[in-house]
C-alpha cells in the first residue's frame, strides 16, 4: 500500500497545476496519468492561448505542457507515475491504479480528480463509419503523431475547437470543404473564424449533417439547412465529398471515479453533462475529494490550470499546510472570475450558478 498526502489523477493542465501547487505547499504528491507523457490534451494544442499572462496567454499549448511538466519534474516530493490508469476509488479511501499490468494500491490523505473530458458524438445515419472522428482525435493524429488524417474534411461545430482544428487541418495539408454549425451564429472567437475564412473555408451556420455516406469508410456527407426550430429543411440538401468528418460538438466530463466515490452528481448541460457538486475550493460532497479542470465542468485549459491550482492549495490547506491559503485562494478565484467574464463565459457562469443553486445534499454515507 502506497501512502501520500495528495494523489492527483490526471496530468493535464488541471492535474499538473494541482500537483505543483500542493507540492509547493509542502505536501507529498503522487501524480498519476494513464498516458506515457504529461500534459494531457495540451500536447496537441499548437495554437497560442488567450487569457492573461498568469495562464500563459500568447504561448502555444504544446509549450505550456512542456513548462508545466518541467516544473512538476523539478519538485522534490512530487512523484510522477506515467502509464498508470486509475481503476477505482473505494469506500475506505483506497485508490487502485494499473501500471505495467500490475495493480497498485494507494491510500492518499487527499484526492484530486482531474480526469478531463471525452468528445461527444452526434446522432445521424452512418455516424459510426470509419473516417468520422472527434475533432480532438484528428488533432492528436496530426499534431502528436504526425500522420495526415485524410484528404478532405468537413467540420461540424464552429466553436473554438472546430475553428482551431479546421485551421490546423490546413496546416497539415488537408483540404477543408466546410465548417457546419447548427446554431445561427459562430460560437468561437471571431479571430479564429476570420483566420479560416481568409483561407477560403466557408462557415455554414444554421446547417447540420443529414447523413454520412460510404461503404467501408467515409466517402461523403449530406448537409442541410436548419430552420429556427433546429429542424432540417427538405430541399436544402447538399452533398460534400469528404473522407474525414470531424465532430466538434462538445465534451463530456470524465467522472466515473467521482460517481464511484459517491460524490453528489448533478446534471448541468452548460457544464457538459453530469458533474460533481463542488464548493468554491473545488471540494466535492465527499470530504477530502477535490475535482479540477474539465471533470468539474467543461471549460478552457486556462481555467483548468486555475481550478487545478485552487484544488491543490485547498487539499494541502485541509492537511494543515499552506498558511497563505486565504490570500492565494482569493487570487485564484479572481483569475477565474476574469476568465469567465464577458459573453464567452456566459454559459459557464450560468452552469456554475445552477450547480451551486442545487446545494449540497446531506451525505448518504
Amino acid at each position, binding site marked *: 500500500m502506497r501512502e501520500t498526502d495528495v494523489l492527483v489523477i490526471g496530468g493535464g493542465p488541471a492535474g499538473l497545476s494541482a500537483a505543483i501547487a500542493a507540492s509547493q505547499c509542502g505536501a507529498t504528491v503522487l501524480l498519476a496519468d*494513464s498516458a506515457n507523457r504529461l500534459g494531457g490534451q495540451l500536447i496537441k494544442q499548437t495554437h497560442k492561448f488567450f487569457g492573461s499572462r498568469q495562464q500563459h496567454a500568447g504561448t502555444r499549448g504544446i509549450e505550456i505542457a512542456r513548462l508545466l511538466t518541467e516544473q512538476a519534474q523539478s519538485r522534490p516530493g512530487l512523484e510522477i507515475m506515467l502509464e498508470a490508469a486509475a481503476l477505482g476509488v473505494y469506500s475506505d479511501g483506497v485508490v487502485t491504479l494499473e501500471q505495467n499490468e500490475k495493480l497498485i494500491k494507494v491510500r492518499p490523505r487527499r484526492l484530486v480528480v482531474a480526469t478531463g473530458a471525452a468528445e461527444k458524438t452526434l446522432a445521424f445515419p452512418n455516424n*459510426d463509419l470509419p473516417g468520422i472522428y472527434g475533432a480532438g482525435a484528428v488533432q492528436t493524429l496530426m499534431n502528436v503523431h*504526425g500522420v495526415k488524417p485524410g484528404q478532405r474534411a468537413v467540420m461540424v461545430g464552429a466553436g473554438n475547437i472546430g475553428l482551431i482544428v479546421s485551421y490546423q487541418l490546413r496546416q497539415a495539408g488537408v483540404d477543408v470543404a466546410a465548417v457546419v454549425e447548427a446554431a445561427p451564429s459562430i460560437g468561437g472567437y471571431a479571430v479564429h473564424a476570420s483566420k479560416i475564412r481568409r483561407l477560403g473555408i466557408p462557415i455554414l451556420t444554421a446547417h447540420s449533417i443529414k447523413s454520412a455516406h460510404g461503404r467501408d469508410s467515409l466517402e461523403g456527407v449530406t448537409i442541410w439547412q436548419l430552420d429556427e426550430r433546429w429542424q432540417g429543411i427538405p430541399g436544402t440538401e447538399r452533398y460534400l465529398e469528404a473522407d474525414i468528418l470531424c465532430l466538434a460538438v462538445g465534451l463530456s466530463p470524465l467522472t466515473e471515479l467521482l460517481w464511484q466515490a459517491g460524490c453528489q452528481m448533478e446534471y448541468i448541460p452548460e457544464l457538459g453533462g453530469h458533474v460533481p457538486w463542488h464548493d468554491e475550493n473545488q471540494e466535492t460532497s465527499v470530504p477530502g475529494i477535490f475535482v479540477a479542470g474539465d471533470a468539474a465542468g467543461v471549460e478552457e485549459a486556462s481555467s483548468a490550470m486555475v481550478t487545478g491550482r485552487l484544488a491543490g492549495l485547498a487539499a494541502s490547506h485541509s492537511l494543515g499546510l499552506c498558511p497563505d491559503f486565504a490570500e492565494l485562494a482569493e487570487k485564484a478565484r479572481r483569475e477565474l472570475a476574469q476568465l469567465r467574464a464577458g459573453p464567452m463565459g456566459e454559459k459557464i457562469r450560468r452552469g456554475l450558478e445552477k450547480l451551486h443553486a442545487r446545494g449540497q445534499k446531506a451525505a448518504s454515507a
Partner: protein
Amino acid sequence: MRIKDHPILDFPEGKKVTFYFEGQPLEGYEGEPIAAALHDAGIRVLRESPVLHRPRGFFCAIGNCSSCLMVVDGVPNVRVCVEKLRAGMRVERQKGKGDLLARN
C-alpha cells in the same frame, strides 16, 4: 501518409519496425500508437461491430471511447489508439466481443 512539412511542428523520424496486419507486413515507427501506423498505411477499418457487423475505426484517439478495439498478438479488446507499436506485432481486426480463452 506522414506529414512532411508543417509550419509549427517537426516530426523526427522514429525507428522503423515491421509488424503484421491481418498477416500482411507493414512498417511503422516503434512506440507510436498502432492506430497511427495503420492510418499511415491507409487502414481505417479496425474492427467489426459485434451485432450489426458494421465497420468501425477509431473515434477519440486518446483511449477514452473503445471504438478502436483490435486483437493484438492474440489478445482481444486492445485499444490500438494508445497501444504502442513494437516490432513483429500481429494486429488483427476484431470481430465480435473478443474471446480471451481463444488465446491459447
